[in-house]
């Protein structure tokens, strides 16, 4: 099937890309194209031009700087999966990447594209929400920084203006008393869209109590979100079976699945309980 007509511009620097985006209001950035190309075929976007940002050096690296992991918007899911620094500092991102689509798509899809597309089932968002990630949006007047939770507005909607590019995902490197887990449930073990994503992070006190917790859920509401009532139930408490069961119940109750998908509340509760139980076991094990 032939793609609809569009022009393709291939800037070589970030400045040039931003200038082109400002000059052409009907242009869309393209990187891996794993969302956009099928969308163009379906006709859900009809841009006059595409600006290829996949080769921009400013967007392509993973660095550690001033207590943050800086992931360029053009970093692919496969690069994230293979990066030893990511595995060491934020293993939840490695776990997320290993459940993301499949190998062929991971080699192409970018973290920036996944967030900007803002699909309800976007896998990277729940994992990044529990890490308190921020994103940098570069535009003609410079770069602005937003918490990820603020950037994600709703299904397929973000705070990105048409002349802005998501240049960087900033992840504060968690302490060594941080414990995380991620699980994706879909119709198949792999190569599927999420029916449910659950991500958890527990920051533990040295006595094993939970200092604070983050629980984020994807694919059960217009956009991934944090289950704050469930998080609050864990803060300051020992992660025993009773506390975990109640937090998991609150996480399930927080979901707004579409009609006919009410089962998701029960599944979220079970997945959250499993993840938190696993985390609690690792804290007690002193790992």
């Amino acid at each position, binding site marked *: 099937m032939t793609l609809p007509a569009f022009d*393709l511009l291939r800037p070589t620097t970030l400045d040039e890309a931003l200038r082109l985006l400002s000059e052409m209001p009907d242009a869309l950035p393209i990187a891996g194209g794993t969302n956009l190309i099928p969308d163009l075929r379906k006709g859900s976007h009809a841009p006059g031009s595409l600006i290829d940002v996949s080769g921009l050096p400013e967007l392509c690296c993973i660095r550690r700087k001033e207590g943050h992991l800086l992931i360029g918007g053009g970093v692919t899911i496969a690069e994230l999966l293979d990066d030893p620094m990511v595995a060491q500092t934020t293993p939840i991102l490695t776990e997320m990447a290993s459940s993301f689509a499949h190998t062929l798509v991971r080699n192409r899809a970018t973290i920036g594209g996944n967030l900007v597309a803002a699909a309800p089932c976007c896998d990277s968002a729940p994992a990044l929400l529990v890490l308190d990630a921020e994103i940098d949006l570069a535009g003609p007047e410079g770069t602005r920084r937003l918490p990820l939770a603020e950037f994600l507005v709703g299904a397929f909607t973000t705070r990105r203006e048409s002349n802005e590019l998501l240049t960087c995902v900033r992840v504060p490197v968690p302490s060594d008393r941080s414990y995380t887990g991620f699980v994706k449930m879909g119709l198949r073990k792999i190569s599927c869209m999420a029916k449910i994503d659950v991500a958890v992070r527990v920051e533990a006190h040295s006595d094993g109590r939970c200092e604070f917790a983050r629980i984020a859920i994807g694919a059960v509401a217009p956009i991934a979100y944090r289950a704050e009532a469930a998080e609050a139930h864990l803060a300051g408490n020992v992660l025993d079976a009773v506390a975990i069961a109640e937090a998991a119940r609150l996480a399930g109750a927080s979901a707004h699945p579409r009609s006919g998908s009410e089962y998701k509340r029960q599944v979220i509760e079970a997945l959250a309980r499993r993840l938190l139980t696993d985390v609690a076991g690792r804290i007690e094990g002193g790992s």
Partner: protein
Amino acid sequence: MTERRPIRLIVNGRAHEVSLPPNTTLLTALRDLGCTDAKNGCEQGECGACAVLLDGEPMNSCMILAWQADGARITTNAGLGTLERPHPIQEAFADAGAIQCGFCTSGMVIATKALLDRNPDPTEAEIRDALSGNLCRCTGYGQIAAAVHLAAERLRNLPSWSASSASEDGQEPAFKKRVLASDDVTGEGGRS
């Protein structure tokens, strides 16, 4: 706005200058160059029948714009071996019976090549993950996983094959004719 522009694609060791409009996918460009071993399946990145190595990494060519591949080295299944001298992966697929209709096979072989280049002795789980983007509606995957194990074993005993594939010497794959013939059988030849 949307006029043709010449780009350079290095396909299976041979450089091609082609003039294409910007909305041409790499898959269409390859098929128009005669590389019909890259199959046009779902066009949504789900099936992997169009998988090629782009600078060594396996990707769905249906979701890459040809201009984005300007200057890149592309390897298709036909670039890995010839009829007279098939690549050990291709031989293993035949020997293990990992072929029925053959539509998925090019993509499967490409994904296998990428896996074994990185990991010469993969576990069953690693094989299934590496081939997770390649769908087969005939075989049930058991023989395909067996073919990858077999290919890995043979390649470990034949290190020269993993070091340089047949595509590196720039020769036209001799078994291209057979690939084209199988296209006629599936009716795929007219779809690109």
